[in-house]
């Protein structure tokens, strides 16, 4: 079993990372600030202005440690990855599967089934937690509607109808986002419908940032297994777009993204002061907010839960990798079907 290695997030503006022996040294203005042994690190994520020495980069590539640069708001900028790993036969199988309409449809359905079921669980969980009867009924009703979509999904016969069911479910689900926020927090965190690039309210800023972190983990998981993250089954292929990573992300949005966002909001761990208002109506997490979110995200990844298919306790952070492995097994023909991750 692969060990869940830590990810180092560097958000110090102007930091310089270099290799010293078997350690990573972070310095600012040539002053050594931190030293971390490399064997703890599975990935390095740089937020904003961070430089890395060629030696550290080379060493990381050798060890299979990925390096990613995100803008300070979590938008993807660059990634350094070592030689393509995994085997060509697997990628060939992936490409053939994507070309076979029925197979592509079947895998798309699995990803979306995972999304619908996990979203539904988030709704039901909020319904259980809510003290307001009207809100409870509303959430349960939305959950029922997702259940209907889930049943219809099983009979969907074209990519268009899967897309339709997914879109419909997303609308129903996001309509309830405000209801899932505690009444006393609603004034501070008003959700005005999904907005991206740029997010137009605090809730959108938060979930977009979480999705960006999660997308990175999904992409790395696929690359680790040897799948091509750009060739998706549900998401349309476009140059530079990690379509398969986006496909895989669908199963995890609710579990690792939305649920965590709601916890951070409802427990008051994030406040208005953790966000900055930008010209043009964009809302972004600021330095302190980002730290809180990354901290919570990393902690959440260390929690364990019972995996329904593997029937063992696994760390949440390993889920994308496990699902990527199961997808690879399916594509190679070792198993009958791809089973998405279902949260209980």
């Amino acid at each position, binding site marked *: 079993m692969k060990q869940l290695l830590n990810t180092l997030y560097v958000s110090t503006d102007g930091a310089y990372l270099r290799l010293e022996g078997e*350690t990573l040294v972070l310095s600012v203005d040539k002053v050594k600030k931190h030293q971390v042994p490399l064997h703890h690190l599975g990935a390095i994520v740089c937020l904003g202005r961070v430089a890395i020495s060629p030696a550290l980069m080379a060493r990381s590539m050798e060890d299979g440690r990925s390096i990613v640069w995100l803008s300070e708001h979590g938008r993807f900028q660059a990634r350094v990855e070592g030689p393509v790993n995994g085997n060509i036969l697997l990628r060939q199988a992936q490409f053939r599967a994507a070309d076979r309409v029925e197979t592509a449809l079947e895998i798309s359905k699995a990803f979306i089934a995972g999304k619908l079921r996990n979203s539904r669980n988030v709704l039901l969980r909020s319904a259980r937690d809510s003290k307001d009867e009207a809100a409870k009924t509303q959430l349960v009703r939305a959950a029922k509607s997702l259940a209907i979509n889930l049943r219809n999904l099983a009979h969907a016969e074209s990519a268009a109808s899967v897309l339709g069911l997914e879109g419909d479910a997303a609308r129903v689900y996001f309509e309830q986002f405000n209801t899932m926020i505690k009444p006393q927090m609603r004034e501070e965190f008003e959700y005005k419908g999904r907005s991206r690039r740029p997010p137009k309210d605090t809730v959108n800023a938060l979930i977009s940032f979480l999705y960006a972190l999660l997308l990175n983990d999904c992409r790395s998981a696929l690359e680790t297994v040897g799948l091509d993250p750009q060739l998706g089954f549900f998401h349309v292929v476009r140059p530079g777009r990690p379509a398969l990573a986006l496909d895989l992300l669908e199963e995890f949005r609710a579990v690792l993204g939305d649920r965590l966002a709601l916890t951070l909001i409802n427990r008051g761990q994030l406040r208005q002061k953790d966000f900055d208002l930008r010209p043009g109506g964009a809302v972004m997490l600021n330095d302190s907010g980002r730290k809180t979110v990354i901290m919570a995200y990393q902690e959440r990844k260390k929690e364990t839960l019972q995996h329904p298919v593997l029937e063992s306790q696994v760390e949440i952070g390993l889920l994308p990798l496990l699902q990527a492995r199961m997808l690879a097994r399916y594509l190679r023909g070792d198993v009958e079907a791809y089973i998405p991750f279902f949260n209980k």
Partner: protein
Amino acid sequence: MLILVSYDVSTLEAAGRKRLRRVAKVCQNYGQRVQKSVFECKVDAMTLEILQDALLKEISLTEDNLRIYRLTEPLTKNVKEFGKFRAMDFDAPLIL
């Protein structure tokens, strides 16, 4: 697992002082310095072997002394620290 590495290296001769520096360097690669000749390292079984091997290559068994202790986890419960230095937990979220 969490281990504690402590050492005494004889510094009477130049060769000893060289060993001292090299031993510290090896420890630094796998953990963090918590006191002058004491390091805390979080390692798995394999890394421990590598660390031990690297240390044994540096020290002189006739003149120096090396001790490796296994600490009981969780750290927060079993290790108390006082004074000016605070150790970093490399398994906790690392945001620098």
